[in-house]
């Protein structure tokens, strides 16, 4: 955590290969997801059972799945699901976790701080995937509940990180200066603390986003993600993994896609951290 981060030009970020590659992959996936809103090669849910398990060719670039659906189209729409679930989950978690962290830090050492942080620890103590499964079992599977299940574990991450960052800042002299100017805790948290830990939070959000994509895939893999006919990567993987020797394209495509997306986002997060952190940056 560093406060004395200097502003760097976007150009210098791009010079980091991690940011360039990771950013390119991430942007490509987001673009694909957006394109899928208006266009996919075929309708993602359109079945053509006689044409099932076709290997990749000029008609179906990535072949077809067990119901004769176009895998490329499904992956494109699946990108939308993955990105949307992970993005919304992480955003909501940040919107809840960051204020909690800021609040706890501004009351550091008080009972409130203690209670908030103990509650955080408690959430951490629950086995994550099991509770996600339990949540979907209680409220039924679907995108919203996948978001809740992924998000609930991300809240404490943000709360802890924010609190740690904010606590390091509170004794700093520029915060004292703001207090001398009569500013209250809320105002200082928003005007001075938040902007100065934003870098760290953005980097963490990126990493959580990647984890969110993996978590969504895992939930979908056990059948608790978005519901058919909406395609999702994890479900595609679960549906087709036995086919690995009959129709390897169907089994490998979703796995490689998940891998690439997570890799891209992680690289981006890593690169951003290096670029934004003066200790590791050049």
């Amino acid at each position: 955590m560093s406060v004395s981060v200097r502003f760097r030009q976007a150009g210098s970020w791009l010079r980091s290969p991690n940011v360039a590659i990771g950013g390119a992959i991430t942007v490509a996936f987001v673009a694909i997801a957006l394109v899928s809103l208006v266009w996919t090669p075929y309708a993602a849910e359109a079945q053509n059972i006689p044409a099932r398990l076709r290997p990749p060719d000029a008609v179906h670039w990535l072949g077809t799945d067990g119901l004769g659906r176009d895998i490329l189209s499904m992956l494109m729409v699946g990108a939308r699901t993955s990105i949307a679930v992970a993005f919304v989950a992480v955003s909501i978690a940040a919107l809840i976790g960051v204020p909690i962290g800021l609040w706890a830090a501004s009351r550091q050492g008080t009972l409130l701080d203690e209670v908030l942080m103990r509650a955080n620890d408690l959430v951490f103590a629950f086995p994550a995937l099991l509770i996600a499964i339990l949540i979907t079992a209680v409220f039924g599977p679907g995108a919203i509940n996948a978001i809740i299940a992924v998000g609930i574990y991300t809240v404490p991450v943000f709360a802890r990180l924010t609190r740690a960052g904010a606590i390091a800042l509170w004794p700093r002299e520029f915060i004292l200066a703001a207090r001398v100017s009569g500013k209250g805790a809320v105002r200082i948290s928003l005007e001075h603390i938040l902007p100065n830990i934003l870098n760290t939070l953005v980097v963490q959000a990126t990493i959580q986003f990647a984890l969110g994509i993996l978590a969504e895939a895992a939930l979908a893999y056990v059948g608790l993600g978005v519901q058919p006919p909406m395609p999702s990567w994890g479900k595609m993987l679960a549906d087709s993994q036995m086919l690995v020797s009959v129709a390897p394209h169907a089994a490998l495509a979703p796995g490689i896609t998940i891998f690439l997306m997570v890799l891209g986002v992680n690289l981006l997060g890593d690169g951003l951290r290096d670029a934004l952190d003066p200790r590791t940056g050049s």
Partner: protein
Amino acid sequence: MISYTVGRLMSLAISLLLASLAIFLLLEVLPGDPAQFMLGLNATPEAVAKLRSALGLDAPLWTRYFDWLLGLLQGDLGTSYTYKVPISGLVIDRIGVSIPLAVFALLLSMLIAFPVGIIAATRRNSPTDVGIMAATQIGVALPNFWFAMLLVLVFAIGLRWFSAGGFPGWQDPVQALRSLVLPAVALALPQASILARVMRSALLDTLGEDYVRTARAKGLSRRQTLWRHALQNALIPVLTIVGLQFSFLLAGAIIIENVFYLPGLGRLVFQGITGRDLMVVKSVVMLLVFAVVVVTFLVDIAYAMVDPRLRRVAS
């Protein structure tokens, strides 16, 4: 030290009490009647009612909560609705798989991560470092269920070096360990990647510390400095991650347990949820939370052993 420990334990007890309440209430709103589920499609309503009362499901909410809690305190986890056997017995069997698997995976993860992280840190920005960092990125990004499938494909189906899954029991320890190899590798690789990265950055941090320069000024070589001074300090953040990973591995391996059909704790709860064996779900989740809390506590104590600064605060 003792009074400090007592204080910590009291706050742990309160946390656990809250956790038990959360679990209990969450399961109360879980739709689906266990009795109806167990009796199947052709059951008569009277049979269902009978089973409900036999399971104690018709008692009031708070009675059931306190009964359960009192049982837990006495070490009685209740009886499984499905298997009709005491849950403690089930849990002991599952722990015999889950803990060895978690320990195995964690050891593997450390065995890979420590040397790799150290090499990367000492050769910072060299091609070796860049290569290792790229490899860890791949390790982190691989969905472990997919990776597990590839492992099975190559090493179980293709090469037949290991069985594709299952657990033969501890009567034959060699076979038992063999059956845990692939799952442990599948679990360990992503964890090792994370741990290697943590190791590297922790080591880079300590290698930049003043006392490392002091050690070099004393005439220690780079290698001696690394082993005698940097590593012990770098272990402090690494320990945190190891603690978190152990907790994760203990209960978070459900999907891997499914892929390798291992009778582990995670799958026990998973089956409990789908089979509405609520007693198993609440007791085992509670046990897992307890385990995580205990591990965290042990990690705190391990800190004090590594770091004398904490030793004094704690005493």
